[in-house]
């Protein structure tokens, strides 16, 4: 399939547009069917894409027939197609959950969801830095709109903060892009990677400022300290499917950091080699720290999951700072794992909150659940995965990250933080679990609604991923290692993508 690599962008885009048109726009049920079908298509095409990339190598897609570096090119390599498949899987599972009823409570949930996916996939696939900006904006604006889904004061306020911070971030993004274009004269990331190496002297200094501004922007998306403040409230206030979908959002920032600071400003960048590391390193560690503290302080599951997202971001950023193939491989595995696990937890938190009456998902004594066994099982699985305890995928990612630290200084900092972070999560989860499931008064609330079948199916899909990631951990890690070595190999990740590039 010649056009395979653009499917992950076009499918959600077309489905989103069609859902704005009659007759589908008039009826929620047909929108639901369209959404599920759309995400299923997306899942299939993403899987085929990954398979194709794995068997045939990188898929380049020159939009409009204009070859890079002049036109915009999509680059489906192992890294991006993995992320796209992850997004598709997440989207499908979350959509199953959403169509059970959470999509009500506001207009346009389905088209917005589709556009959000489109933005995320676009950001993963694009090989052009300005196009990356555009897709960032697509996913951001869709996320703004989804955040306010189903209304409420907290949502409004959290959205306000999120929107304005990101507007500032977008401005910085453009400043950074302007500087990079003004020094490199090109926008294609592969072309930039090649040209960066030739920069010297003051032009290089200028380019560095631009690169660092981009780091701030990506750091903001990835919730890097001190720019993580927006995350807990934003995620905790979002409607469950939205929060679950947001689990991938910080990963977009992390992914961009990997793309930009390993390919563009990696080993080969001459004077600008590894410019992000001195900043990423301390900030990543501090992010893990504040995330772990946040985990410890969390009063409710949603906040807990949000803080876990921060911890995972910090861990991924630490991998980016280590800047080695092993670290990147670890990050890729961990990214897949933590995205799905935290998404599942957001959904479970929602089901729980709906069954506990006023107590919602807070760690206080309350009425018992309507479906204690089901929820307990789901909760336990997601908790184990997120804490990083065997037999679920968290431990693999954790060990990979630990193993990726190379110098003893790195080990000295990363290991205690990651392990203590796990301990904080373990303690909080055990406190949470025992309180939520065993500290009861009264009987199950009459108005509490049990989880619907589709909701369970969505959660189950997400949870199932975790053991699968362990069982097929060997294949999975082989894949991430290949993907990582591709990313770190400038000849593969830059020179090969430019038909006319001088070697």
């Amino acid at each position: 399939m010649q056009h395979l690599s653009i499917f992950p962008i076009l499918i959600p885009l077309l489905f989103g547009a069609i859902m704005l048109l009659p007759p589908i726009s008039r009826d929620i049920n047909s929108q639901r069917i369209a959404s599920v079908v759309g995400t299923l298509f997306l899942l299939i095409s993403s899987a085929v894409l990954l398979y194709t990339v794995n068997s045939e190598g990188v898929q380049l897609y020159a939009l409009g027939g204009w070859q890079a570096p002049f036109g915009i090119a999509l680059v489906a390599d192992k890294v991006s197609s993995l992320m796209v498949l992850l997004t598709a899987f997440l989207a499908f599972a979350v959509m199953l959950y959403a169509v059970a009823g959470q999509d009500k409570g506001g207009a346009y949930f389905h088209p917005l969801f589709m556009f959000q996916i489109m933005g995320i996939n676009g950001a993963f696939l694009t090989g052009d830095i300005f196009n990356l900006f555009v897709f960032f904006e697509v996913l951001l604006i869709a996320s703004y709109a989804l955040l306010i889904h189903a209304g409420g004061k907290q949502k409004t306020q959290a959205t306000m903060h999120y929107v304005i911070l990101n507007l500032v971030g977008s401005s910085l993004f453009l400043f950074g892009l302007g500087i990079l274009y003004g020094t490199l004269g090109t926008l294609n990331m592969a072309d930039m990677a090649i040209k960066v190496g030739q920069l010297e002297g003051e032009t290089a200094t200028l380019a560095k400022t631009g690169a660092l501004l981009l780091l701030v922007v990506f750091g903001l998306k990835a919730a890097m300290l001190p720019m993580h403040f927006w995350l807990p409230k934003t995620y905790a206030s979002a409607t469950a499917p939205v929060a679950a979908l947001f689990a991938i959002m910080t990963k977009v920032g992390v992914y961009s950091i990997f793309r930009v600071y390993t390919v563009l400003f990696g080993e080969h960048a001459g004077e600008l080699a590894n410019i992000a590391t001195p900043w990423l390193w301390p900030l990543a560690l501090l992010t893990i720290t504040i995330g772990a503290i946040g985990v410890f302080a969390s009063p409710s599951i949603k906040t807990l999951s949000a803080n876990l997202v921060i911890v995972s971001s910090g861990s991924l950023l630490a991998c980016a700072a280590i800047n080695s193939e092993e670290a990147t491989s670890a990050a890729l595995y961990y990214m897949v794992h933590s995205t799905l696990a935290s998404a599942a937890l957001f959904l479970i938190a929602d089901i729980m909150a709906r069954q506990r009456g006023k107590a919602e998902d807070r760690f206080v004594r309350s009425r018992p659940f309507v479906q204690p066994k089901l929820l307990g099982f789901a909760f336990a699985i997601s908790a184990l995965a997120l804490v990083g305890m065997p037999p679920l995928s968290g431990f693999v990612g954790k060990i990979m990250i630990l193993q990726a630290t190379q110098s003893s200084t790195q080990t000295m900092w990363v290991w205690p933080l990651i392990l203590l972070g796990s301990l904080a999560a373990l303690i909080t989860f055990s406190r949470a679990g025992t309180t939520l499931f065993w500290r009861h008064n009264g009987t199950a609330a009459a108005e509490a609604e049990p989880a619907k079948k589709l909701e369970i199916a969505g959660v189950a899909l997400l949870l199932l991923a975790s053991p699968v990631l362990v069982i097929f951990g060997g294949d999975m890690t082989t894949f991430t290692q290949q993907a990582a070595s591709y990313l770190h190999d400038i000849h593969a990740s830059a020179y090969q993508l430019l038909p006319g590039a001088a070697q």
Partner: protein
Amino acid sequence: MTAALPALTLFLVLSHAGDIFQGERFQAAVPWIPAIGLELAFRLDGLALLFAILILGIGLLVILYARYYLSAQDSIGKFYAYLMLFMFAMLGVVLSDNLIQLWFFWELTSISSFLLISFWGHKTDARKGARMALTITGAGGLALLAGLLILGNTVGSFSLQDVLDSGDLIKASANYPIIVVLVLLGAFTKSAQFPFHFWLPNAMAAPTPVSAYLHSATMVKAGIFLMARFYPALANTDLWFLIVSLTGLATFLVGAYIALFQHDLKGLLANSTISHLGLITLLLGMGTDLAAVAAIFHIINHATFKASLFMAAGIIDHESGSRDMRQLNGLWKYMPYTATLAMVASASMAGVPLMNGFLSKEMFFTETLHQASLGSLSWFIPVLATLGGVFAVAYSTRFIHDVFFNGEPINLPKTPHEPPRYMRVPVEILVGLCLLVGIFPSLVVGDLLFAAAGATLNGPAPTYSLAIWHGFNFPLLMSVIALIGGLYMYHNRSHLFKFQAQFPTSDPKMVFEGVIQYLVNKASRIISMTENGSLQRYIFCVLALSVVMTASSLMKLNTTAGQRPEIPLDALSITCAILLCISALATVIWHRRRVVALLTLSVVGLIVSLAFAQFSAPDLALTQLSVEVVTVILLILALFFLPQKTPKESSPRRVVRDLGLASLIGGVIGTICYALMTRPLDTISTFFTENSKTGGGGTNIVNVILVDFRGFDTLGEITVLGIAALGIYKLIARMRLYMPSSDDNGLAWSEDRHPILLAVISQSLLPLALLVSAYIFLRGHNMPGGGFIAGLITSVAIIQQYVAHGVEWIKTRIKLDYQIMIGSGIGIATLSGLGSWVFGHTFLSSWFDYFYLPVIGKFELASAMVFDLGVYLTVVGATMLILANLGQLTTSERPIQKEHD
């Protein structure tokens, strides 16, 4: 049913026993996740066999026992599931031949034990006890992981066999102390070694079968197993000896001491377990091969007598309703058979001859005597060991005397009686074993012990004799002292109890919870300090970080100006710059008078457009102008619903701080901007200039870039616009706004809703504006213009109608569904891109050609125009969806709810 699986497994394991006794070792490995060193690797050697037999054998007995122990309300299925899970995990630990896999199962034991301890989760004790156990063992597990990873990295392999074979390498490595400490942390926490011992008594909130199984025979032994397993790799150094044996000694004494003062039967047993675990640890720490043998032997013995004692305690609890030794008295009368069994087991615990406990304790005493690692202080160890023995005898005696004799029961909830037949069977078997081992040691466990010891030492086991009688020697003397001293101590226990009562008792549970709560509070304080909910602070952080990052690298810029010649200044530009700067500053100064700020902002926008025009960007000028107007209209709309003035609320200090940051960033950005502009640049843009006409079919290069070279950006851009409109619609749909009845001066609004002149003129302007927008649209490809600007012009023209005539008037006259416009706009743009697929080109490949028609002449058709039409429709649809819906907010008729609820 449940028992079938363990029984089968036990059978399988035992079927290999013969070979193992011959010194064989079974190993099997399948690769799993090589990236983390994990492979599916199992080994069955003497040590593994010993533990497997313990786990499966006692497991079977516990399954049988639990069948009678649990009440009808308890879900026995759940219990068995957890138990099987635990059994599986334990087997995994002992059979692992890979470090990571070992840890994998190690953590599984923590999890399954958490589930078992909290089986009665409705009880506070159970929840807290389980949490504590999980926290301690979990923390230890993490330390263990770190230790194993370093160990594996040091050896270069995660295969257990490789590790065991590289003892010298490990001990020579600089990492050795770290490895030892981390691995031992894992072991000590699991085996409840001092100072981590406190979780074990609190884990007694679990059902008794769990205690019997986990907290005597198996889980707590996992830590011991770990030390035994890594014995060849890590032991036999001074560091090992110091840490392990001293910890073991301390645990041995502390456990024994505390056990004596427990009133709860299970509490006594738990602390006695701690003490015995300490004993084994002490043995493992000593570093001699014989000590290791003694340790292994005691593992077997402790498992048998302690499991039976727990079961007996469970029977007592079950049949009398209490475990409090102050209530329980004289049960001999009610359950003599059980009492007998318990007495035998206790005797073993106390180390009475003819019992298995005696044998291993003798070996223990022997080893303490041969210990010289503490130099001249080595005599301490046998003395303290004997003291521990005294306490052991004392609490064993208490267990028997205080429960089965010592008067009549007090206020028992139930009248005690013998348990059901089959509930006793497991106890009988275990007690029988105690005796059998005690009397015929080498016959019963000789082979097993020998194989296990060999496996532990990763070599041949030393020579030892498993005899009941070794003649009169020091160990025997120590045993005698312990027995007599223990009985004496028990007899005079009231003094001791009084002595103990002076000390304030502290419930470790409360302390632990208190510590956790303290940490949680601290954490909450930190979080609420950092995430204080102030957006301004968040923005400040982002900006401060970016300024620190950029400024730090900008410092290295020696000269700001580059080589590129600058354009000379002219009066016009200076005037415009003055206008721009003054207006911008005025906007800042007057930002609290909102309407005025809006006016000055408009000036800024106007000048920016002029600047674009001046510097050869007519398209930008046009776009900026039209966007500017729509933005201002939007802001005016917003002004009505927002307060019209801003109160003054920033403190001078904050103003200065913000001014500082703002000017710093402004300075940085200005500097970079200047530095960039004055340096030459080699760009890819010549390609666009060369291919615009030939490849894109248009002379307006910017537009060709927008709809062709980088049409994908534009597709994204209109999607953003469309999404924004949808989002805004969502925002508006549930908005309930304040509508001021007067302006900020308190003046009532004018009554003239639609000024006549404005209304009439607007109607005339509309067709003209549409024509202009058609013009701009059509010429866009070749001249400044295009779908976006055309769309905005159309929108502004329609908005003008709204302003002049109001929503109601428009509603009756115009039937446009803006949502459909957005959808079809995005759809058309996408489809125009998909069209190229038909011709085998990539998405958004453009097509254009020149045609000739009579009369009309030559004209161009291009797919880019279809794309641009999509842009146009989206822009109009989005802008109008926003503004028209916003306008409807104040009309008497609320917006039609398109919600799906």
